[in-house]
C-alpha cells in the first residue's frame, strides 16, 4: 500500500480512473448498440473532441487560478464568424495569417475578461457572464444576420477537417486532432515545468498567500485569460473549418461543454489542482457519451441535454467527497514517511 501510494499521486489515480471510465463507456455502448464502434463514429467523435479539447485546455488555464470563463462559447462564435467573413472577402489570404488572426481576435477578447478579473477584482463569473452576452450581441449586431457559407470559403479550409496524418486500419488520425494534441502536450508541459504554470496552481491554491508572496499574481491571472481567449480563438478557427456554414449562434453552449470537460477531467473548481491530460480525458468522456447517446434509442432526446449537467454534478461531488480525502490521506502518509526517515537519520 505504502509503495503504491509512493508511486501514484491522487491526481494520477484520477487520470487512471478516467481512462478506465472511457473503456467502460465504450464497452457498455458496444453491448447496447449494433455496429457501435466504427470508423465513422471514431471520426465524428475525434472531430468534435478536437474543438472541445482545445477549449478544455483554455478553461483549465483559468480554472487553475480559481476562476471561470463563461464567455468561451461567444468567443468561438465571434472568431468563427468574423474570420469567416473576412476570408469570404479575401479568399487568397495566407492560412497562417488566418490562424493568427483568429488567435489574436480571441486573445483580445480574453484580455478584456482578464483586465476586469485580475485588475478590477470583479468575480470572474460576473465578468465573463457579462462578456458572454456582450460578445454575442456584437456578433449579432455586426453580422447583418448573414450566414457564412462553405461554398464561399477557400478550398484549403473546407478540406482541412479531412486532412489525414496517418491511418490505423479504417481509423483516421486527422490533422485537427493533431493540433489539439499538440495544444494539450504544450500546456501539460507548461503546467508542469514552467514557473508560470506552477504559479497558476499557487494562485488557485491560496489566493491570499499569492497576493503576499511577491510574484505578480495579477499579471499571471491576466495572461491566463489572454491565453484562454487565444485558445478559444484557435477553437473558433477550427469550428469554422469543421462546419463551414457559420451562423450568429455558432458556439453557443461550448462554455458548458468546456466546464463539464475540465470538471469531469479532475480540474478542481477550487483551483490548485488538475492537468491538461485530465482535461482532455474529460473532453473525450463528454463527447463520447453525447455521441453515443444519439445512437441509443433507450434514452429520449430530451434527457440527453441533462447529461452534461449530471456529469458536472457527479464530478464536483466526487471531487469534494473522494479526492479531498485521498489528498489528505496522501499528505498524512508522506508525513509518516518523513518521520520514519528523520528517525533513521537521528540514529
Amino acid at each position, binding site marked *: 500500500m505504502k509503495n503504491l501510494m509512493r508511486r501514484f499521486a491522487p491526481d494520477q489515480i484520477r487520470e487512471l480512473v478516467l481512462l478506465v471510465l472511457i473503456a467502460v463507456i465504450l464497452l457498455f455502448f458496444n453491448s447496447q448498440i449494433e455496429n457501435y464502434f466504427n470508423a465513422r463514429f471514431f471520426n465524428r467523435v475525434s472531430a468534435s473532441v478536437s474543438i472541445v479539447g482545445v477549449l478544455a485546455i483554455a478553461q483549465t488555464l483559468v480554472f487553475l487560478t480559481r476562476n471561470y470563463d463563461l464567455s468561451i462559447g461567444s468567443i468561438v462564435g465571434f472568431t468563427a464568424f468574423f474570420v469567416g467573413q473576412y476570408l469570404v472577402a479575401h479568399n487568397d489570404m495566407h492560412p497562417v495569417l488566418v490562424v493568427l488572426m483568429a488567435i489574436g481576435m480571441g486573445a483580445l477578447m480574453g484580455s478584456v475578461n482578464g483586465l476586469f478579473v485580475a485588475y478590477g477584482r470583479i468575480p470572474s463569473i460576473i465578468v465573463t457572464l457579462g462578456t458572454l452576452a456582450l460578445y454575442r450581441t456584437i456578433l449579432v449586431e455586426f453580422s447583418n444576420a448573414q450566414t457564412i457559407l462553405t461554398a464561399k470559403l477557400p478550398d484549403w479550409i473546407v478540406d482541412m477537417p479531412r486532412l489525414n496524418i496517418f491511418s490505423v486500419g479504417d481509423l483516421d488520425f486527422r490533422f485537427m486532432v493533431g493540433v489539439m494534441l499538440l495544444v494539450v502536450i504544450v500546456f501539460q508541459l507548461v503546467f508542469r515545468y514552467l514557473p508560470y504554470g506552477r504559479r497558476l496552481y499557487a494562485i488557485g491554491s491560496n489566493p491570499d498567500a499569492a497576493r503576499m508572496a511577491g510574484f505578480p499574481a495579477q499579471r499571471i491571472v491576466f495572461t491566463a485569460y489572454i491565453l484562454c481567449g487565444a485558445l478559444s480563438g484557435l477553437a473558433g478557427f477550427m469550428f469554422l473549418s469543421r462546419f463551414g456554414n457559420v451562423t450568429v449562434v455558432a458556439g453557443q453552449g461550448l462554455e458548458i461543454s468546456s466546464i463539464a470537460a475540465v470538471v469531469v477531467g479532475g480540474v478542481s473548481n477550487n483551483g*490548485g489542482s488538475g492537468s491538461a491530460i485530465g482535461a482532455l480525458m474529460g473532453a473525450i468522456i463528454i463527447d463520447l457519451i453525447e455521441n453515443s447517446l444519439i445512437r441509443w434509442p433507450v434514452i429520449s432526446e430530451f434527457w440527453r441535454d441533462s447529461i452534461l449537467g449530471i456529469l458536472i454534478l457527479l464530478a464536483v461531488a466526487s471531487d469534494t467527497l473522494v479526492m479531498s480525502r485521498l489528498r489528505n490521506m496522501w499528505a498524512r502518509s508522506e508525513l509518516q514517511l*518523513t518521520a520514519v526517515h528523520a528517525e533513521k537519520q537521528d540514529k
Partner: protein
Amino acid sequence: MNKNSVPVLEMRHISKQFDMTQALDDVTFSLHPGEIHALVGENGAGKSTLIKIMTGVYRPDQGEILLNGNHIQIHNSLDAQKHGIAAIYQEPMTFPDLNVAENIFISHEDRGSVVNWNKMVTDAEKILDQLGVKLNPRAQARGLTLAAQQAVEIAKAISLNVQVLIMDEPTASLSVHEVSQLFKLARSLRDKGVAVLFIGHRLEEVLEIADRVTVLRDGKLISSAHRAEVTVDTIIRDMVGRNVEEFFNKKTVEKGDLLVSVRNLGRENIFQNVNFDVHRGEILGFAGLIGSRRTDVGLALFGIEPADSGEIVFEGKSRKIGSPQEALSLGIAYATEDRRQLGLTMPMSIASNITLPTLKKYLTKLGLIRQNEEAATAEEYRKKLELRAPSVFSAVENLSGGNQQKVMLSKWLNANPKLLILDEPTRGIDIGAKVEVHHIVNELAAQGLGVILISSDLPEVLGMSDRILVMREGRQMAIFDRAEATEEKIMTAAMGQQREEVPA
C-alpha cells in the same frame, strides 16, 4: 548584538492615520542585523500597522524608511521581498496544493525558465538541513502542521536572502514544543546576521527570545530597551500607563437579585471552566487580549455557539441555550462587535433594523407589518437615546458609527432583555458618542438590567464595570472587584503572568 552596527532597517518619524484614528504617531525605530527585537503593545497599539508599512501593505503618511542607510520606498510585497524583508504570520501563507520545495521557491525569479524538479528538491533539502528542519521536500503542504508550515515559510525567506524577518505572533497557535523549535530557528537566523522582529502577546516568550524590547502604546513608541534593562513589570507599565482621559459617570446601583449564574461553562477547544454571576443592575466587564475567547463566552450565552459543558442558571432555573431564539425568549440579548457584518442590515431603515428581532409584535393578523407602529417604536428610541438621524426611515448605512451603535442598542432593548451582552460597544466610534453610549449603559443597569460588557478598551472596562472577569486563551484568569481592579492587575492576568483560583 553590535550596537554600533548600521541598522539594517530604520523607520524614522513614521505617522499613519486611518479616519479618526492616529494608528502611528511619529514612531522612530530601528532593527540591527543579528538581533531579535520584540515589539509589544496592547491591541490597537499600532504593531500591525507598523509591520504592514514594513511589508508594503500600507504607505506611511509621513516619515522615511532606510535600508542599510539608504532611503527606500516599499510599495508592495514584491518591493519588500526585493529589499530582503519577509514576514511570517500566525496564519501561514503556504500553498496547500504545492509541495514543500515548490512553496520555498515559488517567488524566485532567478531559477531559470524551466522548473528543474530534481534540483529544486535538493536545493530545498539543503535549506531545510541548514535550518535543522526535517521535512520531506516532496510532501504536499496540505498535510503539514502549522509549525511545519511556518518552517517552510522561514525556509522560503532564507532562500530569498532575507535581511529582516518579521514574525507576527507566530506562536499563537503552537504547542510548547513547537514554540521551542521555532525559537531555535529564530536564534539560528539571528546568528546568521538576520534581524528578527518578533511580535508576541506572551511576555514570558518575549523575555525568553528577545535581545531588545520595544513597547508601543496608542500609536506612539513608549520605550525601546535592551533585554537586561526590562522586566515583566516595566513592560506592562509601559503598555498600559496612559491617563484615563474619558470620564466615566458610573452610578452606584444597589445590587439586585441574582440574575444569571454560570458554572464550569465550556465549549470544546474554545474555552473551559468559566464561572461567574451577574446580578440585576450589575455590569460585569470581560477583559482579555485577542484570542482570549471572551467573545465566545458571550456567543455561548446567546446560543449562537452553544456551550457543551457546564451549566447556565438563569433566574434560578438551569437552562440549555441552544439557539438565539431560546436566548431571546429567556430575555438575553447580544449586541455584536461586528456591526457592519452581523449586527445591522445596512441598507435597511432605522425602524426596520430596530424591530427585526421582535417583528412578530408588529404583525397584523394577516402577517403584514404595521409600519406606523414600527415607526412609533423607532421614534421612541430616537428620543430616548438621542439618535441623530434625519428620520427613522433613513438607511442605517448613512449613519455615523456612534449612531449605528445606538440603533443596535435600540434593537436589543426593544426585545426587553433582562441580560444584555455588549461586545465592544464603543469600538471605532468617536469620543463623544462613546461617552453617550457609556451613559446609556449605566442608565440601563440603574433600571435593573444585568450587563456583560466585553471590551478591549481597558479604561472603559475599568470605568464601567462593577466586577471584571479576565480571560486568557479560553481560561478564566481572575475576577476583580471594582475597588481592587487596576490596569496593571488586569494586564498581568491577561498576559498569563499569574493565575488566581477564583471561587466564582
